[in-house]
């Protein structure tokens, strides 16, 4: 028995570190898999309430379906979660937006879910308390217990001191800066801070496509706007996020002026005026969060599983981070269900379960990361090639519903067939070459300029070939390879 009154046991089947979306969903998925109630699950979080920094708030239909399957969707909807119909993407503020609707994606829910992160976490934690799950808030992981190469538990640190908790499996769901990952010694090679995201909330914002998430291009980085909460009186709160470079040109109060001058003008009216007014009225500094690219590290080691952002994250432009976390929870839940009747004395999630989890995880995470990186690069449009790709994307999306639905299926993590990914890549590359050669406005555009653009597009497409190959490989990779690697 533990010597701390908040803890019922000193040994758990699973200890989940991090009570955010991925942690709570994993806990619920595991609890549901444990039909006979034989398992002890502990969820630990360092914050008594929620993490003070704003975080992901948009969940694609695939993730919403998982929430529904886990019985969490209705409570999130009830506290004000807003169903989102898709994305309205503006190449610039002066042209009509491209409607990337979820409804066009076959075999998926027609809507995703968007919810204020703090409400999301509070609701999920409240729901967890009704499960046979122990939730321990205000405790941080100080160390990991090891038995040989295997992680055998965690050392928690709170106001009352340190406590050792033994566990068959530790699940790290503590985000992109995962402490558990660091303590386990899993290298995060390639981790890179891309920049920062500044966040702002508006009430009853005039979104050009109500009920949609919006992406506005044209400024240094994309500006996103999406509804995050429907209040009791019907007021809709909208999140505005502004993508800032890593080397902030100004800091402190001047940042607001910088955003007003260099980002807000690229948002169409009247939303731009509303954002400007909100920034001017905002007291103190804007909420900021770093944007990080973390190429997926090995998501599994003996006694440890990484889920959510701890297992790899990318720029939030595709808003797929939360959906990925939910897919991790679902995948782990499937493995737990498979092992629900495991005999006493054997770990619930054995090495084979973890291998299967990793095999599945390694298929969808690289696709998501490749897409996010490519889309961010194209949407930023920092060079000829990426601008050509951006133009090509809009040109392609303008070519018909099929193009939009296929892209949306990939972007919303609903499509994972490799040939679809490959064909979308080839189509975009072809459009990029075409749009590079044909100017939008100039009647006698010099051949040299056309060739420069085309060269840029071809170079970028060529550079992405490795990425495409990596994604394709992730999809077709035979499962036995993971088994060999695990040995």
């Amino acid at each position, binding site marked *: 028995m533990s010597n701390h009154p908040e803890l019922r046991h000193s040994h758990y089947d699973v200890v989940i570190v991090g009570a955010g979306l991925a942690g709570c969903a994993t806990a619920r998925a595991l609890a549901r898999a444990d039909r006979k109630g034989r398992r002890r699950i502990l969820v630990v979080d360092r914050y008594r309430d929620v993490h003070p920094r704003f975080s992901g708030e948009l969940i694609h239909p695939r993730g919403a379906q998982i929430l529904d399957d886990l019985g969490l969707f209705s409570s999130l909807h009830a506290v004000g979660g807003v169903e989102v119909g898709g994305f309205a993407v503006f190449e*610039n*503020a*002066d042209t009509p937006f491209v409607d990337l609707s979820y409804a066009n994606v076959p075999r998926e829910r027609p809507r995703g879910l968007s919810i204020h992160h703090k409400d999301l976490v509070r609701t999920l934690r409240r729901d967890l308390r009704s499960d046979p799950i122990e939730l321990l808030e205000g405790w941080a992981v100080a160390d990991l217990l090891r038995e040989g190469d295997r992680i055998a538990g965690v050392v928690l640190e709170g106001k009352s001191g340190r406590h050792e908790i033994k566990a068959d499996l530790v699940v790290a769901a503590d985000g992109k800066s995962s402490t558990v990952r660091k303590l386990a010694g899993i290298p995060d090679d390639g981790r890179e801070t891309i920049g920062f995201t500044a966040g702002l909330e508006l009430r009853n914002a005039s979104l050009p496509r109500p009920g949609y998430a919006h992406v506005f291009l*044209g*400024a*240094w980085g994309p500006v996103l706007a999406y509804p995050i909460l429907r209040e009791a009186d019907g007021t809709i709160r909208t999140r505005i996020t502004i993508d800032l*470079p890593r080397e902030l*040109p100004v800091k402190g109060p001047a940042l607001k002026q*910088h955003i*007003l*001058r*260099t*980002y*807000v*003008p*690229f948002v169409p*009216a009247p939303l*731009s*005026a509303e954002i*400007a007014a909100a920034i*001017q009225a905002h007291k103190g500094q804007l909420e900021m969060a770093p944007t990080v690219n973390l190429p997926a590290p090995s998501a599994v080691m003996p006694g440890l599983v990484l889920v959510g952002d701890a297992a790899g994250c990318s720029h939030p432009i595709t808003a797929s981070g939360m959906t990925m976390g939910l897919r991790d929870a679902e995948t782990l839940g499937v493995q737990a269900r498979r092992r629900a009747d495991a005999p006493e004395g054997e770990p619930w999630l054995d090495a084979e379960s973890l291998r299967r989890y990793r095999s599945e995880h390694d298929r969808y995470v690289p696709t998501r990361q490749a897409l996010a990186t490519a889309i961010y690069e194209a949407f930023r449009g*920092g*060079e*000829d090639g990426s601008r050509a790709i951006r133009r090509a994307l809009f040109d392609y999306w303008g070519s018909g519903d099929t193009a939009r639905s296929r892209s949306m299926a990939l972007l919303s993590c609903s499509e994972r067939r490799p040939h679809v990914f490959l064909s979308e890549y080839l189509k975009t590359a072809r459009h990029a070459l075409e749009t590079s050669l044909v*100017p*939008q*406005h*100039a*009647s*006698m*555009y*010099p051949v*040299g*300029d056309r060739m*420069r653009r085309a060269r840029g597009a071809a170079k970028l497409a060529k550079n992405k070939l490795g990425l495409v190959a990596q994604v394709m490989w992730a999809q077709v990779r035979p499962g036995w390879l993971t088994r060999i690697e695990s040995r």
Partner: protein
Amino acid sequence: MFDRDERAESSASTAAAAGPSASLHMGTSPLEAGLERARAGAAAWRERSGHTPPGRGASDVALPWLLHVPDVGPTCEVLLADRLFHDLRPAERAGLLAFVRGTQDESGAWLDAHGTPDLSLTALGWWALRDAGDDPRADHMLLAERVVHRLGGAQRANFAVRLWLAMGGQIPWAWLPAIPSELFLLSPRVLLSPARFSPWARGVLTPYLIIARAPARLQLPDASPLLLPHNDGQPVAPRLTRPGLAGDLLQAFDRTVKLSRKLPRGPLPRIATRRALAWIDEHQQGHGGWFSVRPTLLSLVALRVMGAASGDPRLRRGLDHLRQSRGQARIPHGRGAGQPALAQGVGGRSLDALGRLLACGAQESEITWLLRQELTQRGPWQARADAATGGWPHEPGATHHVDVESTCAVLHAFGAQPEDSSQVTASWATARRGLDVLLAMQEPDGRFSRFERGESEVFMQGLPWTDADLLAHGRPDDSEHLRVTARVLTALASAGFRADDDRVGRGLRWLERTLEPRLHEQVSAGALSGVAHLAEALGALAPSNHGLRRELEQRLRGRQREDGSFGAAVDTAHALQAFVALGHTDVQAQRAARWLTNHVMRTSADELDAWSRPVAWGLGLSPAGFDPSAGPREIALALKAYTAAGGR
């Protein structure tokens, strides 16, 4: 050169040395008081230029003042062309003649903006006065005649003078280069097509084809005394090509073209003329003029030659535009230096100067007016620049030609609005279009063009014509392109673009490449207005340890004088702007700011209005002129930037 600097500077220096002015406003710092006074001066210039503030009608401004005072050339040409149009009112004629007389130097020459006797200007000045009835044996006429002879005779003057001489029947048309009419039948994609000339050259050479083919003949007074004769009394024929084999071959080609005109060539010349005429019709802008004054004058002559009656609306609108482009100006140098007179501008009111005046502190209605000046019609500049219609022209009412410098100035004015202005959000959409235009005007090597892409790299410019330079708008690496590129980079940086954008990076690299070998010419000895623009670009885009930025800063510091100034008030204002742009409000910047503050508080409004340095933002054959509103305007901008940066 009209130069009251030294006198004003010495008095200002004395005043500065005497300590703070006793006439400072109570309760405000000397800096604030100086800024307010400079702002008031800038506001006065806005009114004076004919930019009527809200609540006042246009009639309240009796006769607007020019924001850019060119050399005497356009004024003389308008006087000569009036022989054909009979449009000048007696008061206008008298005013223009006063400008011509006043700008004649004691030596008899007419000087260019840099103070050098100019053959073409002197020939035009002499002829305009002769046309006004001045006795050719009068001293001032004889002096001018001698200057013309000393410089090689009128036959060696520039293309415009020779064209007027040919139209006046003073020289044979063969003394002008032949333009094969077939050129006008070529596809615009062909390198030799007139569509590849700079817009100014196109505006001049298209009517020239019609005028030379007709040919036009104006009843102008005898100008033969200006032609340098042989010993036999016959004028020396000019050489149209440069010396050398290539020049000789081209000269032979020129003769062949001229001879071939006498042979039957079927319908081609007629079709070419019809095309040229159609081009003239199509390119008359909303304000009635063509690209600038010289293209306008020649287009009107061409229309007249082709039979347009004096009541023809195209003629009427064109003449009205010429009238609106006239304004009062202080005579910059010469016998009447400092006296006001009526001068012909190279275009309408410069939106570049007006934009900077409005950046000193504009009212909302003035920003609304600026928004209305945005280009909304597709123009020839979009042939090679891939951008939707937008940006601002050189002058209000122009509809065909974008001007990158005006666009930068207007964007600057938008950025200088107070945060609570209702026009802030209204200006965003137009500013976005303006930025797209700026980006589209980038050349492959990274520099930015001013009016059209490819304007300074015309294929035919490479041929050894003596007038070949007219075909292009400057040279790719000249001071103007340095300035334009720096201004565009500054505008882009203000809108959030950074050096990590390949277009900005390319522009910055071009700036480095072009500026580094010419730092002495451009920074140590060059105009401080140019240095300020360069500093603004480098300050916004290059890190503080950037080599070129540091070098520029050091050279700038080296130009400060003992009293804190950098020479004239305008130069000191530009230097202060450069300091602030580079992120400095240190001792040197403080001394410059203090000098400016004292200067502005102790100098009369008239003195503040005086120009100090020629500016190189003219057009065509009048490449430089004077910027009379620069004094209060640049001081206000400098002190405003210094205050905003926390300077005291």
